[in-house]
């Protein structure tokens, strides 16, 4: 956990390393989310001692959060750049259908997976192109693209699911590495790369700059077009990875599999502290936001909360967390 924390510069040369780490950690927004998450876990461990804090349930939560967290990394980059991607869910579904159709057509698994990734990356690339070249608002462009992806899914499937039998895809979605779900490890790797890319590379700095002040970034000589297209393409590739895991998890490419993922990814990203206005946000925050929502949904079921009240509870928690965030930022 601590190794993810950005080192920063110490203001006090006499400060010890551990003090410095604690000071920086407590000063970060993510620490508030982490404390909230830990608090819910502690309360749940008391209320449901036999079911919540068991390895099986922890792996359940990891399985349930993995796909959302992976695509939310892409959504984080998009939102930090000042955009939004409403096509991410159906792009995920489209990738799964393309892979299933390719496998059904006799292509080998590697080619089929590549075909799915290329299609999803192309959808993301097109989003970037329409947004930068035609100057359509990201909301409209990606909403249109979501409809295109959804339509193609139905044209290809007529609503039918397609069974998946490829062992590698099933392993990614349903297998374990040791005792840990393979998809959770893949999520960890992607989160780590995402944190590094956004916080430590020139690309990440450019993405933040574009979201913070696009005009100033452009005037400073940075290609906004190239970077935005790269961001949306990256979101498409991450949607594809989510799609591969989803078909492996469900043992089938389901035409409805991508529905609601765009809203889940946006909710996780916003709860994680990414600003809707762009320029601010962290992948670590997004991971914590995804985990918080997944743990809450899991907890509500373990507590046998009536299904009608669960939606109310999740919505209320999103509003409460974001309100606290707004007040904290204003105070700062």
């Amino acid at each position: 956990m601590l190794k993810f924390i950005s080192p920063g510069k110490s203001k006090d040369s006499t400060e010890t390393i551990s003090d410095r780490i604690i000071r920086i950690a407590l000063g970060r927004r993510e620490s508030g989310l982490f404390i909230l998450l830990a608090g819910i876990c502690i309360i749940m461990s008391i209320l449901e001692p036999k079911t919540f804090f068991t390895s099986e349930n922890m792996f359940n939560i990891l399985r349930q959060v993995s796909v959302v967290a992976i695509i939310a990394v892409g959504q984080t980059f998009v939102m930090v750049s000042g955009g939004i991607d409403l096509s991410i869910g159906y792009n995920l579904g489209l990738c799964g259908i393309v892979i299933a159709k390719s496998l059904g057509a006799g292509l080998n698994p590697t080619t089929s997976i590549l075909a799915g990734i290329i299609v999803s990356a192309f959808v993301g690339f097109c989003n970037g192109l329409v947004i930068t070249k035609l100057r359509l608002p990201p909301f409209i462009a990606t909403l249109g693209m979501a409809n295109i992806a959804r339509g193609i899914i139905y044209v290809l499937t007529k609503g039918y699911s397609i069974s998946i039998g490829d062992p590698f895809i099933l392993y990614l979605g349903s297998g374990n590495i040791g005792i840990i779900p393979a998809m959770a490890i893949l999520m960890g790797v992607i989160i780590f790369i995402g944190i590094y890319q956004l916080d430590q590379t020139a690309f990440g700095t450019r993405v933040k700059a574009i979201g913070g002040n696009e005009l100033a970034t452009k005037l400073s000589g940075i290609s906004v077009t190239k970077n935005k297209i790269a961001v949306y393409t990256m979101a498409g590739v991450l949607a594809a990875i989510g799609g591969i895991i989803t078909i492996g998890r469900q043992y089938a490419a389901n035409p409805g599999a991508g529905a609601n993922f765009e809203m889940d990814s946006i909710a996780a990203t916003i709860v994680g502290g990414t600003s809707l206005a762009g320029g601010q946000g962290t992948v670590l925050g997004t991971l914590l936001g995804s985990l918080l929502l997944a743990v809450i949904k899991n907890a509500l079921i373990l507590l046998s909360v009536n299904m009608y009240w669960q939606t109310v509870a999740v919505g209320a928690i999103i509003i409460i967390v974001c309100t606290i965030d707004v007040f904290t930022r204003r105070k700062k």
Partner: protein
Amino acid sequence: MKKSVYRTIALLLMFMLIFSGCSGPSATETEGEEGQPDEIAEQRTFAIVYPIVHPFFEPVTEEAQKYADSIGVELLTYAPDKPDARQQVEILENLIAMKVDGIAVVPTDSETIAPIVNKAIDTGIQVIAFESDIPKSNRAGFQGTDNYKAGLALGEEIAKRLDGKGKLIVATGLPTQLSLNQRLDGMKEALESYPDVEILDIQSGQGDPTITMNVIESMIQAYSDFDVFSGIDATGGPMAVAVWKAKGWTKDDKMIITFDNVPENVQGVKDGIITSLISQKQWLWGEQLIKDLTTLCDGGSVPNYVDTGNVVIDINNVDTYMEE
């Protein structure tokens, strides 16, 4: 050169957006043939409106299309791209504007859809409901499964397989869908006669595969001593099969007794994962819908309510149940 290529691709995409997303109807046309312009004036046009694109309804479309072709009726089929009553209302509004001759509809939300159904009838369009009724409308007739009775059948099947004693977890679909609520009521009513069968929890997967899967996993975690999982909608069974496969379970470990004969469920029965299914007889509906609409357009009448019944499918009749 590079710029012009970008612009060309961008323009092409813009046209795609305009035609598919921004200005297109919020519905997915899954079937239907375009009639010749000079034939449309004479040809009757019927529409079937589903609550969502789903393989469950494919046999209905196939049978209806076959019969419509044989009598020279143009058939349009529509479904909202997600279970959304507002989208279904918009589809019906468009069909009223198109002045179709008859509509057969499965309501996503019977209360919401009733006023627009009545409006269609007032403009002279014949409307019948199937699969799920619209009691507060003036629809001419209903055919489909009596979902309450189907729920009773599910409850009896669960009790039979448990020998009258055991624990049950349940996943349903959209909480607004009348047919699902009727099934749940029927199941609970049947199980009241078996005091040793306990319903541990009922959760909603919202008709969404991923949510349904998460809900099933969490319920299994919360109630590890359950004996039977039951899905009330057509999504519960396939997602339970995926969970069972991931856990390496068969019907001998924990039972799945669920609704609907979608391909994944039928395969689940064959693979020894699903114990039994309660299925509607939707393969009977398609032809009858077109016959009923034709009768109504000819000035005749159709029965107010037809229960097409249900069938229990297990390993013994999985290949022959449609003939029963």
